[in-house]
């Protein structure tokens, strides 16, 4: 069952200049992005800075209004939701961000942070909400004795567990995870990844994971979309993507990830992309990768390639795979 369906999502940010804030151009942060997330599925968007992955997440969380396109959740377009329907949507879609110390109110006690969404959305008493909060804290691996503490008393890993408990409180359908382990040490990262995996199974959750870390993405996702300059350039089931990447950008991205195992290191072929991603204000014409692409052809600078399905579930946006 499809839970979330994103269709041709666009988000342009205007660039204003001068006294009257005349619009002189647009940053095309997200330019026609489409994907689905099924129930109880982990879908990841991976890309480098400026690829637009966080903007997609923010549109889904309704922190941004999309410029164009539809976001269909449980069969309803949510881009124009208001009032009670919007509140209902917010209950079903929760978020966990990169830095828990910025997403937790430093003046609130841990138990209050976790029970706040319950009090806001459900008609329950304070004492019941508190009890539920303590249960949630224990479920994410924190001792009940932390309930009366403040976020500043916690380590990074503990604070991220609190953020996860808060996201779980309303039994959501989808949790948007925006770089959830990037600020954590590796030994703690493994604990959080395992916790997220267990919770998705237990609560039948779907995740939209936003990450630049390909190893985290491979570990936790069912399907992956690779973003470059506002486009999804390749989408496939996780193992297919990592074992048989088709798009030159995906190939380069994967080959750039450093590998701790010396025996695997020797087998790897390095593909270097020259230079840095260009600006999203004036993205290159045709295929956006063409100025840096090692396999560039004549057509690439003229026409934008379509996103085509080469095998079931494996889509790629590259002229190399378009049959003439």
């Amino acid at each position, binding site marked *: 069952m499809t839970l979330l369906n994103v269709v041709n999502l666009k988000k342009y940010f205007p660039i204003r200049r001068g006294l009257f804030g005349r619009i002189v151009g647009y940053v095309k942060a997200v330019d026609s992005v489409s994907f689905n997330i099924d129930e109880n599925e982990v879908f990841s968007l991976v890309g480098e800075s400026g690829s637009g992955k966080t903007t997609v997440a923010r549109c889904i969380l309704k922190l941004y209004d999309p410029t164009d396109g539809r976001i269909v959740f449980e069969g309803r377009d949510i881009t124009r939701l208001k009032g009670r329907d919007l509140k209902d949507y917010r209950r079903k879609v929760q978020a966990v961000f990169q830095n828990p110390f910025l997403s937790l109110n430093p003046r609130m006690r841990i138990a209050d942070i976790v029970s706040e969404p319950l009090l806001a959305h459900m008609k329950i008493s304070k004492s019941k909400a508190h009890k539920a909060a303590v249960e949630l804290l224990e479920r994410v691996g924190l001792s009940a004795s932390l309930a009366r503490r403040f976020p500043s008393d916690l380590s990074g890993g503990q604070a991220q567990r609190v953020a996860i408990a808060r996201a779980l409180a309303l039994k959501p359908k989808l949790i948007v995870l925006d770089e959830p382990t990037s600020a954590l040490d590796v030994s703690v990262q493994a604990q959080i990844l*395992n916790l997220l995996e267990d919770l998705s199974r237990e609560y039948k959750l779907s995740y939209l994971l936003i990450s630049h870390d390909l190893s985290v993405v491979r570990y936790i996702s069912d399907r992956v979309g690779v973003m470059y300059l506002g486009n999804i350039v390749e989408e496939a089931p996780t*193992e297919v993507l990592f074992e048989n990447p088709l798009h030159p950008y995906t190939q380069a991205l994967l080959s750039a*990830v450093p*590998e701790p195992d010396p025996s695997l290191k020797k087998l790897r072929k390095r593909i*270097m992309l020259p230079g*840095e991603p260009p600006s999203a204000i004036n993205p290159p014409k045709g295929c956006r990768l063409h100025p840096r692409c090692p396999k560039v052809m004549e057509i690439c600078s003229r026409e934008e390639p379509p996103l085509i399905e080469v095998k079931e579930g494996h889509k790629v946006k590259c002229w190399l795979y378009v049959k003439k």
Partner: protein
Amino acid sequence: MSSSTIILSVKDLNVNYYTLEGIIKAVRELSFDLRKGESLCIVGESGSGKSTVGLTIIRALPTNAIIAGGQIIFNGLDLLSLSDEEMTSKIRGKEISMIFQDPAATFNPLFTIGQTLSDVIRHHLGIKNKVKIREHVLNMLRTVGLPDPERVSRSYPHELSGGMLQRAAIAVALSTNPKVLIADEPTTMLDVTLQAQILDLLRKLKEEFNLSMIFITHNLGVAAEVCDKILVMYAGVPFEEGPCDEVLLRPMHPYTKKLLECVPRAHRRVGRLRYIPGMLPDPKNLPKGCPFAPRCESATEICNKKLPKMVEVRPGHSVACYAHSSGGEH
């Protein structure tokens, strides 16, 4: 490689920070040798003391830090006994250079890249001729692979992207032809494709300049890419040291083993991740014995009593763990 001469030697180093909440022992009983043309990677999680080691070597510690003991021998000189003036005029930035996680730390935002570079060259190499300085500046910018060196040299730090600025910082660090380069997480702020470019550049420059390098990172993959030797630290204490492949393929310390198991991989499918139970110890209140003992499955009574010493168990491969040796008991 191991037969080349030792260029930098750290002996029994102890560094403490004095804070309002108490004394933090950031580095304890650390010793290692760096040979000419060799790259040593110091790997550790936060609070392992890895960055403090770098700052101690160039004597740029914050004012609340006290070097509580030890020696750092460079070229026959004990760096810890030099005066601040000698350190500034002869060693720091000249013989031993450093690059940081945030490349902007190298630059004054009010000066162009070219001005900063010329200052360093004039000050440390004593070149007065403006044309020669300019030549050297452009040459360095070219060496680190910056396109259009003329334009970069006229740019202010904020006008360059993170990857370009890190290249420029490397140019500054290498412009005095130093013997040792200390790189503290130089690619942590960069995207993976840029990280790969910078690691490639450092590898190339190491060969070209016959540099000795101390590379500080939390990322075992990065360590594997650039290093000849690895030194693993935890809560200020050295745990394991040896040739890179040896440590990664046949780790001896329980912490190193666990750390390798809990890293998710991009190039291999892994089963469920193992993790290290518990948390890093509170730096103000370190356990009496081995700092890893409270999280270690193979900890025995002695581990909680006394800090184990580094002992060479295999050739060139040392470990500080009672499971592998008597821990240097005398």
